Each structure stands twice: as structure tokens, then as C-alpha cells.
């Protein structure tokens, strides 16, 4: 069976949505999907090396007042941190993280070495549009 494709536009750089993205990517990888993640505006900020692993630099997308409860529950439930989901998914299957070049520059990320080690490349918007056109599943988070 041909692997089906998922295209995910990751706009958000908030800790709750990044966690959701990590879980979705993990599920897709378990089902042998080929996954291309296009990391857009706020997402590109979260993928900066100096920010990704520092929870204090990432806010909640919704219900900011529930942040502590969210983080505490995730810890108790043994839920991985978002970047661990991303990294593990890459180890298991075919997942690529493409950083939007403009988004990177907005937050001071100009080169690959400015981003987390699991980022694959820096791309322009037409790459994303092509991937979205070809994908079986297309999500925007």
C-alpha cells in the first residue's frame, strides 16, 4: 500500500497547540504516513534553538490562566514535551520539518543552526502550497 501523505501547517508557537501537533504527528507516523510540517510564523519562533526547550518562553493559545494546570497534568500523565514528540516521530518514520524563511527572519532565525536540530530545511511558501495540494490530509494548527 502506498503511504498516504499528511501536510501540517504549524502556525502556532503555543505550548498547548504544539503538544497537540506532536500527538497528531505521532499518530500519523504510527500509521506510516509521510508527513511534511510547514512551520509558519509563531511556530518558527518556537523552533528556535534558544526557545524550543524553554517552556517559560512559550505561552498557551487558549485559557492562559490554565497554563500551570496543563503543565502539571502533562507531567503527571507522563506526556512528553512537544519537541520530544517531534523528535521521536522523526526517529520512527518519515517526518520533515520545513521552516518558513520569512517567519524565521522575523524572530531572528536566519540559518539552519539557529533552529532545533530536527528542523530539516528553510523553505518558501510555494513548497507548502505544493505539499498541501498533494496531501491526503491537510491540517492547520
Amino acid at each position, binding site marked *: 500500500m502506498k503511504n498516504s501523505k499528511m501536510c501540517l501547517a504549524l502556525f502556532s508557537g503555543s505550548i498547548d497547540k504544539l503538544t497537540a501537533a506532536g*500527538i497528531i504527528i*505521532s499518530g500519523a507516523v*504510527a500509521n506510516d504516513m509521510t508527513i511534511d510540517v510547514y512551520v509558519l510564523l509563531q511556530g518558527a519562533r518556537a523552533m528556535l534553538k534558544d526557545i524550543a526547550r524553554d517552556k517559560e518562553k512559550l505561552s498557551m493559545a487558549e485559557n492562559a490562566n490554565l497554563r500551570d494546570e496543563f503543565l502539571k497534568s502533562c507531567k503527571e*500523565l*507522563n*506526556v512528553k514535551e512537544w519537541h520530544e514528540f517531534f523528535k521521536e516521530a522523526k526517529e520512527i518514520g518519515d517526518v520533515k520539518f520545513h521552516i518558513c524563511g520569512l517567519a524565521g527572519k522575523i524572530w531572528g532565525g536566519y540559518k539552519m543552526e539557529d533552529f532545533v536540530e530536527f528542523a530539516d530545511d528553510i523553505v518558501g511558501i510555494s513548497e507548502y502550497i505544493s505539499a498541501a495540494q498533494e496531501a491526503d490530509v491537510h491540517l492547520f494548527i
Partner: protein
Amino acid sequence: MDASELKNLSASRTVDARGTSCPGPLLEAKKAIGTIMPGEIMEVLSSDEGTKVDIPKWCQKQGHEYLGTVEENGYFRIFLKKG
């Protein structure tokens, strides 16, 4: 298969994913399935309620045969045969 038949199965591989939450058990199953041969049986231990639904669905999509689930005290034993 009923519970007594399942309990008598001898699994080639047991994956203990108890204590992890979704999608932990699924990812552990995914990683382990590559280590057994088609026709061999794998057992996944999970304390996550969602796994009971997740693994059968995953088996169906991946071409493995879901054999059944035994509920133990605080966790599930989920059996499947690799396709």
C-alpha cells in the same frame, strides 16, 4: 478470542507501555512490531483507556490481526498477530 484463550497465548513480544499516555502505547507498539515476524503474536500492556480503541484501529489499517483485550487490575493486555 475470549479472555481465557487470550491468556493462554504465548506472545513473541510483550510491550509494556503502562504509565504512558496516548500516543505512547501506540508508538511503543509501532516500534516493536518491526522486531517480530509475520504470524507472531505481540502483547501490548497499557493503562491508557484510549489504547483499547487505538490498537484495534491501527491493526486494521496496518494489516495486523487484532485478537482481543484482557482487562486486568488497572491496565489492559491487548493481543495482536502481525500481518
